[in-house]
């Protein structure tokens, strides 16, 4: 009997012996997340982690679908998004390190927010639970980890996790925290475009100056790198940490919704429909949404202002890197699913004056590069002798008199880096000094992002200008800042790793860590149980629907067999043995394979008679049936 659910990729079984360290590369994306690892062949491979696909949708559902208090991740969660818009968190990356007051959180968002202790975003989800973005991201990372362990047959404890190059300190801290919560040692936070360049550079053995244009689901990054003799030197980065394909979807969803009422469910459905339409329109000139024709020209008109927003930061990065207008550039690399949109490709070509490269799957390239870096950091004899030299994306500074920002480390400074500056007291007998740490390019405090505030006390009372305080900024290889203030006369000093003002409080982090340790008990077994229950419910619903609409294709005996198996599966799903649920799913699969084929045939027949194939391509059963169909064809 063909295994319909576990289609093993050739070569993956080998990995059990081949890879020794179990250090993976993870692309924690806005829309999809991936995990990859360097295997014995010396090459990075993305692992199939969600229904045979390497892409795990970054969707987390909280609710009763898999039992009380359960969490569902990936495609299974995405299917629940329209029905439970408030309990299903989509694109959580956009909320990482953000305050609930940020305008970003208020746009077309179906969620219900709860106020956190430190102004951090908290989602109110099913069963009275509240979760913050770090916890939601940790669920995605945990799912990747468990599923990678399952595929590889070895424990996965270490990871290189990628972040947009333009992520600020708060967003980086939040990502690292999520990794820790998921039980991973985060070897390194790696900038996404740098990871992509790593995957490309190794592949092509290139030398020269390259631009990486990375437009993902929620973030835009531009990086200019110089590749010389295995050293990847980032010259400049830029971007927008809130611009991506999601915005394309929302722009199109606005058109689709028009003047219709906007319930959370309707909005979620419109966004999903827009996403599907956008994907259709990469190939087709027009498509149909909710009985209405949408053309590629309409889409392009809606998203043009968004695409053009990438031009400003691209030009600035080119100038910063000393290749203004792209003269002297040897190539442009496309990364991120949104670079599949034809209008984006055309814009990039025009912006840089050359045809961009997209030979490596833009969805996988970042995870592949991260896997290479994980291998570099953990192997006795790494497969590649390369070195990455990355930079700070944004300038770091301090508040001085009059609300001005004094910059200590300018943007695009190679990391790790350190800078020290002396400040003096300005009041007579002043014994304390407020240190306000800021990130950004603007000159006024109010225009920069506040990272931390602390007070250095114990300064000896002296006339103004005599006490001197040296403030040192240190940025480590992950791009995370720590600040030390030291009074020069007495040596009084204070060091803090910057805890972002909009981030989580220590208490919140502690609570999250404690609960994650408690949940360590809820191991792989429990997770499999939840996954299988959700899968069972999905299949049962689909089977019901198909029996209703295509039941005439079955003899009474066949129908009886299927219905009996459905009843058995329903019972199994109420028990807590995940093996038995899986077995019953497989049996139902086997019994309905022929039915699925007939449904498919009918679909094709109708399509030939002028009905749209899409009618048959959308149902849950038909996706399932397609698999069955393919398996039968072999």
């Amino acid at each position: 009997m063909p295994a319909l659910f576990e289609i093993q990729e050739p070569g993956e079984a080998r990995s059990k012996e081949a890879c020794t360290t179990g250090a993976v590369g993870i692309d924690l994306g806005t829309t999809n997340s991936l995990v990859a690892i360097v295997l014995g062949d010396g090459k990075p491979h993305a692992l199939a982690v969600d229904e045979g696909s390497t892409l795990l949708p970054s969707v987390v559902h909280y609710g009763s679908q898999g039992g009380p208090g359960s969490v569902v991740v990936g495609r299974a969660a995405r299917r629940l998004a329209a029905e439970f818009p408030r309990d299903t968190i989509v694109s959580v990356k956009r909320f990482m390190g953000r305050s609930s007051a940020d305008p970003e959180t208020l746009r077309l968002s179906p969620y219900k927010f709860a106020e956190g202790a430190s102004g951090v975003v908290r989602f109110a989800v099913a069963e009275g639970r509240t979760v913050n973005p770090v916890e939601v991201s940790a669920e995605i990372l945990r799912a990747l980890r468990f599923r990678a362990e399952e595929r590889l047959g070895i424990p996965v404890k270490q990871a290189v996790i990628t972040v947009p190059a333009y992520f600020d300190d708060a967003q980086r801290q939040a990502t690292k925290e999520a990794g820790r919560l998921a039980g991973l040692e985060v070897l390194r936070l790696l900038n996404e475009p740098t990871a992509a360049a790593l995957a490309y550079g190794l592949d092509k053995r290139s030398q020269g100056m390259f631009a990486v244009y990375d437009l993902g689901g929620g973030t835009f990054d531009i990086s200019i790198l110089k590749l010389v003799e295995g050293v990847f030197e980032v010259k400049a980065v830029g971007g927008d940490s809130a611009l991506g394909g999601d915005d394309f979807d929302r722009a199109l969803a606005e058109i689709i919704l028009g003047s219709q009422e906007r319930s959370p469910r309707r909005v979620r459905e419109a966004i999903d429909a827009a996403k599907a339409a956008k994907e259709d329109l990469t190939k087709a000139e027009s498509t149909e949404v909710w009985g209405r024709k949408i053309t590629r020209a309409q889409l392009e008109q809606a998203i043009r202002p968004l695409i053009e927003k990438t031009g400003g930061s691209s030009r600035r990065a080119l100038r910063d890197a000393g290749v203004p207008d792209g003269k002297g550039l040897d190539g442009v690399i496309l990364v991120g699913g949104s670079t599949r949109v034809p209008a984006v490709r055309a814009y990039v070509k025009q912006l840089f004056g050359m045809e961009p490269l997209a030979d490596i799957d833009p969805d996988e390239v970042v995870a592949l590069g991260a896997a290479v870096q994980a291998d570099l950091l953990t192997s006795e004899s790494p497969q590649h002798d390369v070195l990455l030299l990355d930079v700070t994306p944004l300038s770091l500074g301090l508040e001085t008199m009059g609300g001005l920002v004094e910059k200590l480390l300018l943007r695009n400074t190679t990391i790790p880096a350190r800078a020290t500056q002396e400040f003096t007291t300005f009041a007579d007998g002043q014994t304390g000094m407020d240190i306000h740490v800021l990130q950004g390019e603007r000159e006024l405090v109010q225009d920069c992002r506040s990272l931390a505030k602390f007070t250095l006390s114990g300064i000896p009372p002296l006339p103004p200008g005599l006490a001197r305080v040296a403030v040192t900024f240190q940025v480590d290889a992950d791009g995370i800042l720590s600040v030390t203030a030291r009074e020069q006369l007495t040596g009084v000093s204070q060091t803090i790793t910057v805890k972002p003002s909009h981030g989580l409080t220590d208490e919140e982090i502690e609570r999250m860590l404690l609960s994650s340790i408690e949940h360590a008990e809820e191991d792989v077994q429990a997770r499999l149980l939840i996954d299988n229950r959700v899968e069972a419910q999905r299949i049962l619903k689909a089977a019901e629907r198909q029996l209703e609409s295509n039941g005439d294709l079955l003899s009474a005996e066949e129908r009886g067999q299927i219905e009996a198996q459905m009843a058995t599966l329903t019972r199994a799903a109420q028990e807590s043995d995940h093996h038995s649920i899986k077995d019953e799913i497989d049996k139902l699969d086997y019994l309905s394979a022929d039915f699925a084929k007939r449904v498919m045939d009918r679909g094709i027949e109708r399509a030939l008679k002028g009905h749209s194939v899409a009618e048959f391509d959308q149902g849950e059963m038909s996706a399932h049936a397609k698999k069955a169909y393919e398996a039968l064809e072999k």
Partner: protein
Amino acid sequence: MLDKFALLGVPQGFDEPQGLDEKYRALARQWHPDRFARAKPPERRKALEQTMLLNDAYKTLKDPVRRAEHLLELRGVKGDPKMSPEFLEETMEDRERLLEAKMSGSGVEDLARGVREKRDQTLAQVRELVARGAELSEAAELLARMRYYARYLDEVEGRPAEI
């Protein structure tokens, strides 16, 4: 005083030392924290420390003004000399013009070009003084001017993206 030329293994001089990039890459390969990811904490700290020094030294030596400043520092010339009132007046005018240009959103690049020219002229003067083996204290005011120019240019270059 840390000799950044020595750290990178290049001779002291006004012009960019030959082979600076290659030296930097070789040392970065040797010291970068990635190379010590599996080492013990003291070794990792040392690698981090060395790499921070190396990155800073490379940044100094790549930039003509910072490099000149450092060279004079190494020869015992200290900053903070008395500036001539004429120069101070000139700097205030430059700043006003920069502010106006920023407000109006145009002409910033032209101003930067002007200041870059002045900086280059000053740099040439300092170079000559040093080559002549003249009193290095004479170069002190020029050094301070370069600091001002560098700061001005940093500010211009650190401006937010033009959309």
